[in-house]
Structures are given as structure tokens and as C-alpha cells.
């Protein structure tokens, strides 16, 4: 598998009034083409900052990031982005919001018309093409944002806690919807989340981040087969994996060099 994203020794330091703050400390990992990788960690561990750097929206203080062989210095049109808020333009209809990236790149709207309608139908917004964002619920707006990020069919899709602002029930529905979308439109996916279950359900690999220092402590492979059935969340293997990962997060106060933490967490998981 070829490498889509290479991150080496990435760091971000913010100068604040109370001194320098290490938002991200020496994170290194690779993401292969076609993989769905979650970056999982508690609030404040720097995972959003890491994604902003990978998207070209923040500069690196140290280290390097490479997207398909080219250094990341600024945002690229072949990277789809979804943020925590839907961020739809309030005066545009749902359809026009989905078409916004096409308009920015000055491409022909007609070429993308069929794709926009297909995407909106796929997320269940068939009758909402002409509605305004103010007429939609939070979950529906986020679905429009997902369509907008997919309209140009980018090979890489990055999502920063896209469902954090939604209620738990909608969030579960959106997870299933995202799984569905991704399995029908395979591409490289990066998901930032603080939900262990969400990460295990959706990903091929999970990069666990902790704070202090804010770095990737371990790389967990999710062994479940593709295409994934959403009902695996009920299975014992799923929940064991979640407990194991929770162990890493709770005990990981530093980069795990001798795999001792991993063994300890596994031991903790098997006795629960």
C-alpha cells in the first residue's frame, strides 16, 4: 500500500503570555492510501491542532508533513475537510452549499450537478435541496457538510470531531451513515475523535494520543473485516478492544517504548 500521508516529528508550539505551550510534541506516523485512520485522544491532547497542520491550515514548529510526496505548506483542493460545526453559508440553499467548492475552483456547476444530487440523496436529504441551513437540524447540516466535502471526490478526507456537537442518538446514526458513505466511496480517511467506540467502529487503525506530552503513544490495528456491520458494536471483541484502548489512554503518560503500557492495559482489560 502506498503512503498517502507521512508525518515525521511534527510539533507545534504556541507562544502564550504564560510561556510556550506544546500543543503537539513530536508526532510521527504514516497513513496509507485507502486506510481509515482515527486519531483518538482526550480533550486538549492536540489532535485538532495535528489535523489543522495536516490540512495546511496551521504551520509546523518542527518536523515535516508530506501528502502524496509533496510537502504540506497550504490547503489543497484534493483534501476534503469536515469541521466540528457544519459551517454552511446561511444565505445559500443546501444544493448551493454543496456546490460551493466547485464555485471556488471556478469549475462548471453542470458537471457536478448529478454528483451533488446523488450525494444528497445518499445522506437522506432528497427533499431538502432548496432548503436553507436555518431550516435544518444540526445532524442534517452536518450531513450537508459531508456532501460538500465529497463533491470534488477528494482522495483524502479529514474530519475534526464532526459529530461532537450532536446529540448521542444522532451521533450514532451519523456514525452508521459515515461508515456507509465511506464503504461506498473508498478513499483515505482521517477522523479526529474522542469517542473510543466511534474510532473502533469506523477505523482500520487508531492512533492514540495523550496530553502532556501531546504525542501519539500507540498505533492500534482494528482487526474487524470490511465491509463492517454496524452491529459489531454489540460484540464482545469490539468491547474488549475498546477497553484495551481505554487502558492505553488512561495509563499512557508518555511514549510507550518497551510496550510495557500495552501489556499492562491488556492485562487490565482481560480482568474486567
Amino acid at each position, binding site marked *: 500500500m502506498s503512503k498517502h500521508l507521512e508525518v515525521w516529528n511534527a510539533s507545534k508550539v504556541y507562544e502564550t503570555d504564560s510561556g510556550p505551550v506544546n500543543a503537539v510534541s513530536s508526532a510521527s506516523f504514516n497513513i496509507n492510501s485507502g486506510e481509515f485512520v482515527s486519531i483518538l485522544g482526550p480533550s486538549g491532547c492536540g489532535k485538532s491542532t495535528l489535523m489543522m497542520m495536516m490540512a495546511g491550515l496551521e504551520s509546523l514548529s518542527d518536523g515535516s508533513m508530506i501528502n502524496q510526496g509533496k510537502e504540506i505548506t497550504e490547503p489543497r483542493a484534493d483534501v476534503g475537510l469536515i469541521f466540528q*460545526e457544519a*459551517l454552511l*453559508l446561511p*444565505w445559500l440553499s443546501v444544493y448551493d452549499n454543496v456546490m460551493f467548492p466547485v464555485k*471556488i475552483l471556478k469549475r462548471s456547476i453542470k458537471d457536478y450537478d448529478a454528483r451533488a444530487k446523488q450525494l444528497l440523496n445518499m445522506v437522506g436529504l432528497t427533499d431538502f435541496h432548496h432548503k436553507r441551513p436555518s431550516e435544518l437540524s444540526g445532524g442534517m447540516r452536518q450531513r450537508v457538510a459531508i456532501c460538500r466535502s465529497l463533491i470534488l471526490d477528494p482522495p483524502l478526507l479529514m474530519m475534526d470531531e464532526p459529530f461532537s456537537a450532536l446529540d448521542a442518538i444522532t451521533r450514532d446514526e451519523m456514525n452508521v451513515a459515515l461508515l456507509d458513505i465511506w464503504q461506498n466511496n473508498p478513499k483515505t480517511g482521517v477522523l479526529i475523535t474522542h469517542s473510543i467506540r466511534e474510532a473502533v467502529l469506523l477505523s482500520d487503525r487508531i492512533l492514540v494520543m495523550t496530553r502532556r506530552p501531546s504525542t501519539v503513544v500507540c498505533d492500534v490495528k482494528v482487526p474487524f473485516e470490511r465491509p463492517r456491520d454496524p452491529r459489531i458494536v*454489540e460484540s464482545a471483541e469490539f468491547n474488549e478492544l475498546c477497553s484495551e484502548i481505554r487502558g492505553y489512554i488512561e495509563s499512557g503518560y508518555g511514549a510507550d517504548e518497551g510496550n510495557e503500557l500495552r501489556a499492562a492495559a491488556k492485562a487490565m482489560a482481560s480482568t474486567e
Partner: protein
Amino acid sequence: MNAREAAPVSKITQSAATVVPGPAKQQRRAVSPFKKNLKLVFETSVLPLLVVAVILFLWEVLTRNFKVPLTLLPPPSYIYTRMMEVWPVLMDQAVPTTVESIVSFLAAIVIGITLGSILASFRLLNAAFYPIIVFFQLIPKIALAPLFVVWVGIGSQSRIEFATFMAFFPIVVSTMAGLRATPPEMLRMCKGLTASGWQVFTLVRLPYAIPHIFSGMKVAITLAIIGVIVAEFISAPKGLGYLIVFASSQADTALIMAAILVLCVVGLILYGTVALLERICIRRYG
């Protein structure tokens, strides 16, 4: 996958059947929509009109009863007859005032939005000029009218220039405030889409600024009218402001009031047009 245990549904439904029904609710009589509309019309239109009618009535009766001199405070009926006498003249003088107000307003919009956009887009220019603009907002610009006569002379163009000067400040300030109103996350999203600065300005920042710009425009139209009238007071051969000055030199108070009345109507129509445009645009860009 573990088989889920069937929830004990029967237990729930059983307990629901044994709930004792509470006391019967009192039915409230529904208010008919006709009555609701009537109340609305009464309160918003009829009531204020009634107050105005009472004031006019009292004015008429009291001025006639106490034989108040016509040069001090003429009764409304006298003002009306005077107005009808000079109606063609009133209309003739209303035209230049209205036209100059509109032209000044439009010029103020163009200059104001352009300047506001430039200042909002370049941080150093913003820092340099913003305090000066605020300073000019605060000083009574009307006091500068005689200065304008010295600089640009008298005549239609100079009146328009003065009124434009009065009217464009609120538009600059509101444009700058409006362009700051775009949520920063939205700007970040646009940056992520590789939008150029110009695209962000025209497609995102300007639409977000529209409600603010309209607030500034409503202030600007009133200032444009004031500017034209004051310029006419000082030196003009025509216009409603000139008519007011002329009438006061003749101690023709009724004519003064008639001219003011026409001026009010002009002002209301122009302001109302801007407010209506605002309503339409807010609906689209709100």
C-alpha cells in the same frame, strides 16, 4: 453476537393500565383569528392615529380659542389652506431637495462601502484611519457647512458634496463592522477550500456584512437629507430648505410648517424605501 434479552414490555403496559385518570381539564375558549387580527390592527394603527387626531383637534381648538397669533402657531386648518394655496410651489421646491438627497445618498454608499472595504482589508490602514473616522463621526459635521461653502462654493454640486460628506461616515463604520462579522471558523473553512482573498471577500464576507451595512444606510439617508437642507439654509435659490428660510423671513409660519410637513413626507418615503430594501435583503442574506 449475544442475543439481547427481550425487555419486559408486558410489565410496563400492565402498570400503565392501572394509572388513575386525573381531573378533567378545563377547556379554554379559542380566540378566533379574526379577533386576533382586529386587536393587532387596533394596537398598531388605530391607536396611534387616534392620538394624532386628538392632538390635532386640541391644537385646532386651543389656538383658535386663545386667538394665538398666526405668526406664532397657526391652527392645522390654516396650515392646510396655506398648503393648498402654494401646492405647486411646494412640489416644485421638493424636487431639487429630494433629487439632491438621493444623489448624495448613492454617492455616500459607493464611497462609504469602497472605503470601508479597503480599510477593513488592510490591518495597517485600519489602525491608521479608524480613530480619525470615529472622531469625524462624533463631531457635529453640520458645523462644517459654512466651511464647505468656502471650499466648494454654492450650487447644487456643492450641496451634494456636503451631504455626501455627512452621510458617508456611518456607512464606512458599519461596513467595517460588518466585514468583521464573519465567524473566523467560516474563514478557516474557506481557506481549507483554497478560496482566494477576493472570493472570500465577495462570496462570504460581504454577504455577512449586509445587515450591518443596511443599518449604516438607514442613518446615512437621514443625514443626507439633513445635509441638503442645511446647505439650502445657508445658500440656495431653491429647495425646501430655501423655502423654509424664505418663509421665515416673511414671518409666514404656516408656510414653514407646510414645507416641514412635505419634508417629513419626503424623508419618510426615502427612509421607508431603504428599510424596505433592508427587509428584502435580510430575508435573502439573513
